[in-house]
């Protein structure tokens, strides 16, 4: 295996893990509440902005990251209280548009508060690079992202599969009236799941800050990739979201890195570069179309957790 | 006479639960064949497999001598299998007339016509009105279907089934939720249809079943335990056992 390929592979996994952090909340919220939340992407952006600003303010990236978590949670709960809970019993179309309104507002709010230029992000202190192969350095922080994502994935799986709360979430997804009849406050359950999903997205954004640019509307692209992830994985399935996120992350990253070169085998350099770039950016969507053609409900559709 | 509908060894399980176990029965042209059985006997599941909304795990469904097991609901409907639903299934926003006219449209010619106003097509409306008259709903043709009373909706459902000019009517509890008066009217209506259509009827109202059916099959826990004329069924010891404590047969 060439060193460059290994790096692309790791980058792909890293993108996949970040996508998973966003997609997990999205798929849980949809699975439990049948609520489609376009504003999930701006919660990712909010996490990145909060962590970066707090990192600058405290002088420590890690402290900023830590403080961003409860704030992301609070922002999610506030949005749920102000907007989302008025939409649970509306059709998906209304939910799409109202949450689109939230996106417009928060994107603009971020621009008004922080400006349109990318925000300088403090680099995580105390981590250097490690030597993957002779002559090949890789930032440790990127490995930390991968580790954190895997850890959250495992934690979520345990939560949903092994705890009373998770049992309620699974039951509430298939039969909300039944769970209500058991004496569980379904609204509170919704609120908790919502806040938790928002915090995960915020965590993803905070982690992504030092690697990607922190700019207004950074959540949009992630949101749509997260949609692709949960459609491929099967809506409502944590396991499906995890596997699909890794798949999408890898396909996107490797496609962008390698397709232009691959096409040079059959095309001239300039058209190969252009066609390769166009094709690479379409690759995950073609992947989605291909999977849906055979499994309309996604890889793990209909199968819970 | 060759049967119109024939089931051969139909079986279906949901996980470990076998809901249909080797059911075989035949419906002759023009006869009313009723399927009865206690709650949870698998009657609706059976209807779903006959109409094509559920695929059986094993066995065959033959319709007019043709094996239709692999066909889906629309394909079987096009062959002349019309069904009514246990829970009323009409287009609530359409008028009663438009509901029935849609059924006429579905069986006659193409629906890929883009410009003429469908509502003004007398070729669709005339048969639709006739079907509404036949079920006694002619005076409500212009009413929006969602605003009809429960009994009227059941009548409308029947009119829709009739308008698609089927050779077999699958009626899933057509009397469910109807009051005594509506029941009497619907029973009279079904009786009037006997001979014109073959009907497979799933129904809880034993009085109606015994008044209407030419043949009755008894389903218990997914299995047919008896099949015969109303008199034979009334006298059948196993049937009496299955319904022990329920005095509906008395």
């Amino acid at each position, binding site marked *: 295996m060439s060193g460059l390929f290994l790096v692309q592979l790791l980058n792909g996994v890293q993108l996949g893990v970040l996508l998973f952090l966003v997609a997990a909340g999205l798929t849980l919220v949809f699975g439990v509440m049948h609520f489609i939340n376009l504003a999930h992407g701006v919660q990712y952006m909010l996490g990145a902005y909060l962590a970066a600003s707090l990192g600058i303010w405290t002088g420590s990236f890690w402290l900023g990251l830590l403080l961003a978590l409860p704030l992301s949670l609070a922002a999610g709960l506030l949005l749920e209280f102000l907007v989302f809970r008025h939409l649970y019993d509306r059709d998906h179309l209304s939910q799409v548009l109202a949450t689109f309104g939230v996106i417009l507002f928060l994107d603009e709010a971020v*621009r008004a508060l922080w400006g349109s230029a990318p925000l300088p992000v403090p680099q995580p202190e105390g981590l250097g690079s490690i030597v993957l192969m002779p002559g090949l350095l890789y930032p440790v922080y990127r490995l930390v992202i991968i580790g954190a994502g895997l850890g959250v994935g495992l934690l979520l799986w345990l939560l949903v599969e092994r705890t009373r709360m998770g049992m309620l979430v699974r039951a509430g997804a298939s039969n909300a009236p039944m769970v209500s009849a058991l004496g569980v406050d379904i609204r509170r359950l919704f609120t908790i799941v919502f806040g938790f999903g928002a915090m995960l997205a915020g965590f993803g954004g905070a982690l992504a800050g030092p690697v990607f640019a922190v700019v207004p509307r950074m959540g949009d692209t992630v949101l749509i990739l997260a949609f692709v992830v949960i459609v491929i994985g099967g809506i409502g399935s944590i396991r499906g979201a995890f596997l699909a996120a890794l798949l999408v992350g890898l396909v996107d990253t490797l496609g962008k890195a390698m397709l232009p070169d691959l096409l040079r085998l059959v095309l001239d350099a300039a058209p190969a570069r252009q066609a390769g770039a166009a094709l690479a950016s379409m690759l995950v969507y073609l992947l989605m179309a291909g999977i*849906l053609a055979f499994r309309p409900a996604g890889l793990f559709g209909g199968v819970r957790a | 006479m060759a049967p119109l509908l024939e089931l051969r060894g139909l079986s279906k399980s949901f996980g470990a639960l076998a809901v249909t176990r080797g059911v075989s029965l035949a419906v002759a042209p023009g006869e009313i064949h009723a399927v009865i059985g206690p709650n949870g006997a698998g009657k609706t599941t059976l209807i779903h497999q006959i109409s094509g909304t559920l695929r059986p795990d094993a066995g065959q469904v033959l319709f007019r001598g043709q094996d239709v097991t692999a066909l889906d609901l629309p394909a079987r409907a096009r062959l002349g299998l019309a069904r009514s639903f246990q829970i009323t299934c009409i287009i609530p926003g359409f008028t009663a007339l438009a509901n029935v006219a*849609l059924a006429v449209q579905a069986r006659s010619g193409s629906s890929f016509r883009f410009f003429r106003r469908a509502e003004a097509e007398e070729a669709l409306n005339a048969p639709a009105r006739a079907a509404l008259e036949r079920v006694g709903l002619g005076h409500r043709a212009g009413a929006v279907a969602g605003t009809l009373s429960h009994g009227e909706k059941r009548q409308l459902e029947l009119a829709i089934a009739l308008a698609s000019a089927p050779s077999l009517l699958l009626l899933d509890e057509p009397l469910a939720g109807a009051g005594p008066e509506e029941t009497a009217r619907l029973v009279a209506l079904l009786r009037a249809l006997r001979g014109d259509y073959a009907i497979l009827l799933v129904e809880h109202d034993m009085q109606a079943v015994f008044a209407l059916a030419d043949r009755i099959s008894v389903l218990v826990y997914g299995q047919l335990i008896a099949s015969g004329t109303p008199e034979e069924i009334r006298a059948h010891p196993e049937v009496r056992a299955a319904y022990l404590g329920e005095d509906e047969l008395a």
Partner: protein
Amino acid sequence: MTALLRRQALPLALLLALALVPVLGVQDGFSLGLLARAMILGIAATSLSLLVGGAGLASLGHAAALGIGAYAVATLDLLGITEGAVVFPAAILAAALYALLTGLVSLRTGGVHFIMITLAFGQMVYFATSSLSALGGDDGYTLYGRTEFLGARLLEGRLPFHYLCLGLAAATWLFCSMLLESRFGRVLRAAKEEPMRVRALGLSPYPYRLVAMTIAGALAGLAGALMANAMEFVSPAILSWPRSADLLFMVILGGVGHLHGALLGALALVLAEEVLSHLWDHWRLLFGPLLILAVIFLRGGLAGLPALLAQKLVQTLDRRAR
């Protein structure tokens, strides 16, 4: 005819008002440009309304079909082809083909899947156009000139362009209304309300929905070709997914179930954006919450307002009389 007038009084009044605008003296390029943009988006929104209100298909990727129409104009322009008899059919066909191909996949699913998949396909087109360096990539492409018809520069003048857009908007509305009232539309509407009933009658909704998506795509392509001419410029921005959400909002704001509502919604949205963006740099801070409030409270849409107000009025008069 009088029945038609009474039933369609609102849309006809709306079209008449748009026809009278230049007659009443508003002829400056800015105002007419704004109206042209609103009418063009109105065409796209009407075609989306056919899907949403008629077939229950909430596509969140409709701007892609519009964008493909616009990019067809740009591509042909790059090749030196500006003949309308080629450009317009090409734009319409390209967008219809896109709608057909994505419909084949997305219609296999339903509900929220459909929303997400149409969104994803729309993004796919967005990224594809962004990487077309021959057409300027992200920066977009400026047309050499507007489309001609047999050498005549019909689209250059403000007034002809205004009336062309108006005529096409009216034709689109009429065409979609007729579709919905036809046998075909009856199947679509029935399948929206109760797909099981339709299937039990022997009609599979899939091919009808696919045809509806293709038609809607074709109309959006037409709108795209007009848009490219109106702006004399094409960039990926016109097909980014927020533009698809805008189109959906126009449909909802105008009122689902009223085809002319889409044109009304487009006018309202374009004018509101224009006014708000002049008042304040960060106008979206107002616009976002307005959108949310409109969705939560204005359920019947603008097209439903007159009926609602009339009803309120009658109620009030009744109470007075008693």
